[in-house]
């Protein structure tokens, strides 16, 4: 089973310019979704889906022009199939442009945890390891 999503794209723009499209809500909205994102570790934010549901997120990593990661989960108060996952972006300068790598990983479905609050810290790291493959 595939446990991780990975996409690599190349752009002619420099990492600084691509970074703006990952971190400025007015630019993110043009290709993703509206959000109240801020590039601050620990910041809680939401993307608004076209059907007015939310993707609930928390910023995990910000390394300007290089690295960005956030928790990506659905609205646990509104769903019967809560999941959590991690989205991370890596920008690398190549020639005059940028290589952008998206990794969406760590998927877990947590139907029974809806009643719990603050679920992210609660998650078993062991299970995360299991879903990401055995450690060798």
């Amino acid at each position, binding site marked *: 089973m595939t446990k991780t999503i990975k996409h690599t794209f190349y752009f002619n723009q420099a990492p600084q310019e691509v970074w703006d499209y990952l971190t400025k809500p007015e630019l993110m909205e043009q290709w993703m979704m509206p959000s109240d994102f801020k590039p601050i570790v620990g910041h809680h934010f939401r993307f608004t889906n076209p059907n007015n549901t939310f993707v609930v997120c928390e910023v995990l990593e910000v390394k300007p022009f290089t690295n960005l990661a956030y928790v990506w989960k659905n609205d646990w108060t509104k769903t019967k199939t809560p999941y959590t*996952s991690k989205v991370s972006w890596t920008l690398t300068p190549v020639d005059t442009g940028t290589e952008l790598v998206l990794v969406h990983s760590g998927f877990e479905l947590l139907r029974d945890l809806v009643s719990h609050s603050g679920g992210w810290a609660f998650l078993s790291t062991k299970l995360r390891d299991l879903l990401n493959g055995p450690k060798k």
Partner: protein
Amino acid sequence: MRAQALDAFQVIADPSRRQMMVMLSKDSMTINSLAQNFDMSRPAVSKHIKIMYNAGFISITDIGRERYCTLKEDGFNELQGFINYFDKFWERKLKKLETILNNKAKLK
């Protein structure tokens, strides 16, 4: 002991079962050797094993007098639907970003 049928989400929600699956992710184990790692009655361990078996997380093979548990992928497949959905989602979104940035480059 009867074990009710739980779905994949309920199966992984229990810490003991998660721990059993972590142990089984390293190697197959007999029910007895699994049970030794848990501070619970043997019937309680058997019940957890039945729940994982019923939901497709493990298979059970009888070898001699021992019953061996092996981790199985089926139980994890429910996750695959989400993963496939997001794979397409990101591909679509990133192509959109590509179009925006290409058009921007042309305008310069």
